[in-house]
């Protein structure tokens, strides 16, 4: 009896918290189809969507955001994955610890401090435009790539690598044939994390972008003007894209899990 009551209570609690998480998104979606500017419903309209796609500024910012995210995530993945391999090869405990601590810095520092410190550096070096923005993005993306590749190296089976060497591989071939495939999932996770961080970033970009307009920066300037329903339309589109991507990846992983279980059953 009490168990049943507990189940109902926890169900209600979960539902309420979910409502809290999704209420604002729901409001944005509903009012993106409103025909007037305010927050009282005056009728269905696609006006804001049409306005959005003729907004040169938004389209241009989207392009800039994609350029920055692409460069930043590719370079961050290269530097971060190499770094994991390098640190893994190190014997010196002190150096390893020092690198570990420096890696944690960008993850623990307030974003605003990262942003202004980069801003000072680029002012000092007199740099502006895309390059400093991409450098800044690489800097906060690299640690997550590093941290997702390192554990994969630790998990590699020692015997496999030695077998490859015994069977006549030189260290480079052994790396290419044994190590690389094993760390690949970590590299891919790191790359995806980097691309998400970069696409989503506002604070660091705000301080380092100079005159480059990224999507977050454009949204910030629009949001400051308060009521602008084009933003509602933009949020709805972004939400639907994210939802689709997550659904596809989740369904895939659940299918994989099911396939695995079936295989196990056969065995």
């Amino acid at each position, binding site marked *: 009896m009490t168990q049943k009551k507990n189940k109902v209570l926890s169900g209600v609690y979960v539902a309420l918290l979910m409502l809290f*998480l999704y209420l604002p*998104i729901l409001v944005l979606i509903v009012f993106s189809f409103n025909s007037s500017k305010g927050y009282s419903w005056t009728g269905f309209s696609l006006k804001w969507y049409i306005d959005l796609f003729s907004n040169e500024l938004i389209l241009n910012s989207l392009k800039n955001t994609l350029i920055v995210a692409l460069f930043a995530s590719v370079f961050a993945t290269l530097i971060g994955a190499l770094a994991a391999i390098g640190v893994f090869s190190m014997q010196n405990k002190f150096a390893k610890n020092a690198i570990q601590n420096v890696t944690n*810095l*960008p993850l623990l520092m*307030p974003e605003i401090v990262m942003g202004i410190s980069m801003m000072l550096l680029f002012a000092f070096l007199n740099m502006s435009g895309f390059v400093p923005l991409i450098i800044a993005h*690489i800097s906060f993306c690299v640690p997550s790539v590093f941290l997702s590749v390192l554990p994969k190296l630790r998990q590699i089976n020692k015997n496999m690598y030695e077998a490859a060497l015994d069977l006549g591989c030189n260290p480079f071939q052994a790396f290419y044939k044994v190590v690389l495939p094993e760390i690949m999932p970590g590299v891919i996770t790191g790359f995806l994390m980097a691309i998400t961080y970069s696409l989503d970033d506002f604070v660091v970009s705000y301080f380092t972008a100079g005159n480059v307009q990224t999507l977050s920066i454009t949204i910030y300037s629009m949001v400051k003007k308060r009521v602008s329903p084009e933003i509602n339309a933009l*949020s709805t589109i972004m939400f639907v894209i*994210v939802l689709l991507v*997550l659904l596809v990846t989740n369904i895939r992983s659940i299918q994989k899990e099911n396939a695995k279980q079936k295989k196990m059953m056969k065995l």
Partner: protein
Amino acid sequence: MIKLNAKWASYPYIIWMILFTILPLLLVVYFAFTDGNGAFTLDNVKQSALYIPTLANSVYLAAIATVICLVLAYPFAFIMSRLTFSKQKMMSMLVMLPMWMNFLLRTYAWQAILEDNGVINTMLTAIGLPAAKLINTSGAVVLGMVYNYIPFMILPLYSIMTKIDKSVLEASSDLGAGFFATFRRVVLPLSLPGIISGVTMVFVPAVSTFVISGMLGGSGNYLIGDLIEVQFLGNSYDLNAGSATSLMLMVVVLITMAIFNRFETEDSEEALV
């Protein structure tokens, strides 16, 4: 573990982190202790003492938001960790989904809900009630912080709680512990690392925010992040003063984290004994 001989591979990373993480932070320290001509001065640091009330207010609001996040997220994470595997996967996706949406847009949504003629007030007046003052209050700022950062509390709590075996809870109740005793003596100590990482992941961004306070707090809720923003990009442009303010924020964050990490190590030592 295998042995590789590729130390050189870490050199680009080491150089990168020195140039673009450590050097910028050193520049903050340098600017904080110099004047416009590069001469050593303590004026900026002394001046930043004027902003201690602003900093205290930021710490206060961020602490309230962190506590609310913890209280709301803890039972949620526990319930989540006791579900079946596929339900757990779905729930963690549902928790993460709002995080993937641009956080400026999410905060903007609260602006739309709380505004003087926003969603809540439109509804209130429609049923004949007087409109309430919701936006531009410190309550709105705390709400914004809780909303934006609660997933950072739920996820670490959830991932540590999935490791608490069902049989441990059953053993506790078999041995006569009631609900609260089980919570206090089994669940709480086992989930402590999750609490610590959740608290840091919520407190650090909350105490340094300038977007949430700017969008939901109006002029009455000026936080340390807002101050740094106007010192670097706004109308009280002064890189030296701004660096001193940032340094002060950095010190507060580091002290807070040091205190929390001590909690963790002390406790894990206890657990080993």
